[in-house]
């Protein structure tokens, strides 16, 4: 299987065409003695060469990007083609014959799918469907128009005697050539347009066209090819009808295959919660299966993969874990970029092989002029028609870019190579013409399109971060417009979109999404969630930059000597494999240690920071403070909401513990008399640590309750801790005031009530987690955020503990409040009312409501007393509003 695949990879040395394996012992000779050294080039030749080519291409890419100036002027695809030409020239000069070229089989089976999958999967679907009408028009009508006009015009050119008579081709041959040369190529378009940042509408129209025209190209090519092979005399009228019918079969069939596989893929990922590690693989396998199936049934494979990626993304992204998402994204991008690089390089190399082509100036020039002219004419005509229906008409500049952006590429080349020389005598001329056209469009047009876009002042795409405002407005608009269309009784785009969303929400999403993912599915919410994560990351970045590395290490160093085993990689594997091990406990302890351990240095850092801030001017400092306060509020409310929304048993326990600890240290500090001017950073940072730590630890347990792997961590921990807590619950009443917890982590372990009875745990403290966490804070935070989505219901018997706990630290803390007003972590962070609610399954939550309600006013109140000083009024107005609502 592998070998068969590799032989398709078409990079064999021409001289070594025969199968390589030479058995060392042949029957006649005595077996040779043991060889010390054996050279087995032939065994590895094919894969070796493939790897080598990819390596060369990647290295070339690196070299190109060394110079920013070159890549900003010249598209990478041009450089790669030129590099291919050079390499091909070298090979030609050395071997005296061209040995490598872009084989159609390789191209269609291996190089094209990753690119198409990447573009389909990451296609901005909203934009795509908003412009679907235009895209389909250009893809179907435009391609047909281009093919027929180019073919006919070339035939006319031949009739006029401008093409040399040695080009033996009839009308059908020219139509065949026209069909393969007319299609805009997705690879080339993507390569060039990604560097020219035109506005999204323009991009999606050109790019969508290049993807969807594949069906038309395939049909035209096949129909013309079979007509040519039949001979024009034998073509019946029914054949034309069949040709038209096959257009529908190929395009709709391809799309259907893609959607079926998208459905399968989404459904499969719904059930992968225990085998997270194969999630990315599933995505690739099923998408590739879609491609191959469509190819097998001679349907449009590109369309199939595009639809598969487009269709499955929403559900797959909701189902698979965060890590898998990242993996899918990067693998897809890597594969696509690699394939693209190889394609362009091989295009360059293939052009060197002069035995394959024959030159005819009339044909080449004629083709170049015709494709440019008819493309422009077609675009203008179609746009004129489309603009009658479009709300936002495409203006002239858009049309120029669209006509000029009609790049031809490797698809055309592969198709022309596939022609049968016996049936198409002019094949060599066509090959030469195709090469010239491809090179011209990619190099000349690719080079000039950027200055052209600049010169014409085409509206560029501006990359702004997604904002809640935008999301909210868009949603509102959608609904309003749908509603108005309903009122008017007009079944337009908005009407159908609304219908589809209803259907999706009612049936598809329920069927294809995990329940946990489905429940929290809301776009506004998603944006809010993402924004918060982004803020958190940038915030951690800030902290990370300001945090002097030394103190952290220094502080944990006492613990670090105790154990040397384990590695970061091992930790990672545990997370993925969910293998339960005895280290859970140890990690849990580590987490506590870290809580204490990381806090201290922060105090130092804080001091240094405050020094730093003093040097800043007042305005900047105030801004920063405002930002931090806002961040804090956001993070906290975000957290609490996250808890609420999924009705999870979400970790009140560890949070509490961490919080308690924090309080302890904070209070200790306060009693030490050190001012805490940067309390927010302290708090958040510690919380990050807590969570990322827990992320790394017990990822294994309690999958039964869990839908999301990230959630595992917390709940596992919660259960175990809860048990401990149950044991020592009597202690809670006499819990030592947090403020007297000594800074030493080991001591803290002993002092803290939930640690008692576990004296041995301190032994397990391992250092590597300590090292990991500061480095890994971002991901940890990220994952921990998503971990909050997990579902789990706790044992019922903890409910009393849970509810009785909050007042306790609060009582201890309240007298302290005036001492560190601005810096005190917001109470609701540690004990958000929602936490308690979230901590129960639905039935239990109702029982707990009164208690929460009791808590809520207190916390709302505390919010203000803690937060109002030292902030600008505008923001705090909001704060108060909220409080009053509470």
């Amino acid at each position, binding site marked *: 299987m592998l070998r068969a695949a590799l032989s398709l990879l078409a990079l064999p040395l021409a001289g070594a065409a025969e199968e390589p394996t030479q058995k060392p012992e042949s029957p006649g000779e005595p077996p040779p003695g043991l060889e010390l050294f054996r050279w087995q080039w032939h065994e590895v030749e094919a894969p070796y060469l493939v790897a080598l080519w990819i390596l060369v291409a990647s290295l070339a890419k690196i070299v190109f990007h060394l110079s920013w100036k070159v890549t900003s002027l010249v598209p990478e695809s041009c450089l790669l083609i030129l590099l291919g030409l050079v390499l091909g020239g070298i090979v030609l000069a050395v071997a005296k014959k061209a040995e490598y070229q872009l084989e159609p089989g390789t191209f269609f089976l291996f190089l094209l799918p990753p690119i198409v999958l990447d573009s389909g999967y990451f296609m901005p679907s909203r934009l795509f469907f908003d412009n679907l009408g235009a895209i389909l028009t250009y893809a179907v009508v435009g391609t047909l128009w281009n093919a027929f006009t180019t073919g006919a015009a070339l035939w006319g050119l031949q009739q006029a005697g401008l093409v040399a008579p040695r080009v033996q081709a009839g009308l059908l041959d020219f139509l065949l050539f026209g069909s393969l040369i007319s299609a805009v190529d997705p690879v080339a378009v993507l390569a060039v347009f990604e560097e020219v940042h035109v506005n999204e509408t323009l991009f999606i129209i050109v790019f969508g066209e290049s993807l969807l025209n594949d069906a038309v190209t395939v049909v035209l090519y096949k129909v013309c090819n079979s007509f040519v092979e039949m001979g024009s005399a034998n073509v019946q009228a029914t054949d034309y009808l069949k040709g038209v019918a096959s257009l529908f079969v190929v395009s709709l069939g391809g799309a259907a295959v893609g959607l079926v596989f998208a459905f399968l893929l989404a459904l499969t990922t719904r059930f992968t919660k225990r085998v997270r590690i194969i999630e990315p693989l599933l995505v690739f396998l099923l998408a590739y299966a879609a491609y191959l199936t469509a190819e097998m049934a001679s349907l449009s494979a590109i369309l199939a993969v595009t639809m598969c990626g487009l269709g499955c993304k929403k559900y797959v992204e909701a189902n698979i874990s965060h890590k898998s998402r990242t993996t899918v994204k990067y693998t897809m991008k890597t594969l696509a970029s690699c394939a693209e690089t190889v394609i362009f390089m091989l295009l360059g190399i293939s052009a060197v092989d002069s035995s394959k082509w024959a030159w005819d100036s009339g044909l080449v020039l004629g083709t170049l002029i015709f494709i440019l002219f008819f493309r422009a004419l077609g675009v203008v005509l179609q746009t004129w028609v489309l603009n009658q*229906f479009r*709300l*936002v008409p495409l203006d002239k500049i858009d049309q120029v870019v669209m006509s000029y952006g009609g790049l031809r590429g490797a698809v055309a080349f592969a198709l022309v190579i596939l022609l049968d020389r016996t049936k198409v005598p002019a094949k060599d001329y066509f090959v030469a013409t195709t090469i010239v056209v491809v090179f011209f469009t990619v190099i000349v047009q690719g080079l000039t399109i950027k200055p052209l876009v600049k010169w014409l002042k085409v509206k560029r795409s501006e990359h*702004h971060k997604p*904002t*809640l*405002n*935008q999301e*909210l*407005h*868009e*949603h*509102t*608009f959608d*609904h*309003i*417009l*749908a*509603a*108005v*269309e*309903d*009122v*008017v*009784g*007009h079944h*337009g785009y*908005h*009407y159908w979109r*609304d219908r589809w969303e*209803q259907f999706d*929400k009612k049936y598809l999403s329920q069927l294809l999404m995990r329940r946990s993912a489905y*429940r*929290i*599915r*809301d776009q*506004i*919410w998603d944006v*809010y969630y993402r*924004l918060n994560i982004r803020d958190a990351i940038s915030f951690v970045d800030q902290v990370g930059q300001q945090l002097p590395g030394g103190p952290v290490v220094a502080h944990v160093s006492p613990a670090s000597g105790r154990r040397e085993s384990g590695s970061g990689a091992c930790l990672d594997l545990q997370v993925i494999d969910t293998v339960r091990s005895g280290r859970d406990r140890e990690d849990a302890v580590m987490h506590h240690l870290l809580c204490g351990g990381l806090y201290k240095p922060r105090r130092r850092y804080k001091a240094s920071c405050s020094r730093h801030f003093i040097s800043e001017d007042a305005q900047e400092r105030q801004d920063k403070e405002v930002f931090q306060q*806002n961040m804090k*509020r*956001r993070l906290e*409310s*975000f957290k*609490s*909401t996250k808890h*609420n*929304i999924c009705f999870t048993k979400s970790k009140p326990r560890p949070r509490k513990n961490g919080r308690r600890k924090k309080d302890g240290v904070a209070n200790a500090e306060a009693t030490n008399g050190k001012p805490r001017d940067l309390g927010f950073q302290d708090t958040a940072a510690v919380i990050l640590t807590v969570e990322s730590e827990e992320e790394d630890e017990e990822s294994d347990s309690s999958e039964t309750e869990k839908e999301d792997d990230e959630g595992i961590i917390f709940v596992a921990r919660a259960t175990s801790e809860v048990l401990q807590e149950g044991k020592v619950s009597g202690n809670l009443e006499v819990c030592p005031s947090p403020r007297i917890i000594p800074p030493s982590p080991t001591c803290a372990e002993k002092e803290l009530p939930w640690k008692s009875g576990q004296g041995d745990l301190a032994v397990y403290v391992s250092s590597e987690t300590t090292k990991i966490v500061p480095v890994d804070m971002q991901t940890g935070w990220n994952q921990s955020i998503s971990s909050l989505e997990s579902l789990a219901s706790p044992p019922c018997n903890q409910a009393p503990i849970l509810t009785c706990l909050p007042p306790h630290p609060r009582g201890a803390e309240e007298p302290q409040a005036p001492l560190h007003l601005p810096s005190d972590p917001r109470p609701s962070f540690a004990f958000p*009312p*929602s936490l308690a609610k979230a901590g129960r399954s639905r039935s239990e939550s109702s029982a707990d409501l009164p208690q929460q309600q009791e808590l809520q006013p207190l916390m709302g109140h505390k919010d203000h007393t803690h937060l109002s000083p030292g902030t600008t009024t*505008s*923001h705090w107005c*909001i*704060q108060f*509003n*909220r409080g009053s*609502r*509470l």
Partner: protein
Amino acid sequence: MGSQASTLLRNEELEEIEKETGLSHCQITRLYRRFNDFQGIPELAINPVGNWIINAFFPEGEDQVNFRGFLQTLAHFRTIKDNEKSKDVNGPEPLNSRSNELHFISHDELLKVLCMMVRVHISDEQLGSIADRTIQEADQRGDSVLDKVDVEQKMSIRFLH
């Protein structure tokens, strides 16, 4: 409801409406058929902003609307024709040309909208925090994120060709 002023569409009334709203004759007759029970449209029931929209058709403080008022509200959503952009149109401006008023102004208003939009079940507090954040965003930029062009493009429907 609302039928007391619009039992019959007389020609002169039609012309008047045409002038007022900028809608064409056949658009108006078609809308008239739609007008009589637009509250009973089943699709509106599941639209989160359905009630909002229906209320928008009723003048403030009244629970009845006549056909003319109905059309004037609807006319906000018509597409701008090129010749309209330059000269003043009598009658209601298309909504998209006065996009500035589209901002959600107060926290409470925003909350109301959010309540309608967010479909998953989340608490008031969470909604509040989203609203806070949204307002904050607008504060930082000093304007709404969607600029006028966007609104222009988005707030039109091509009903009735």
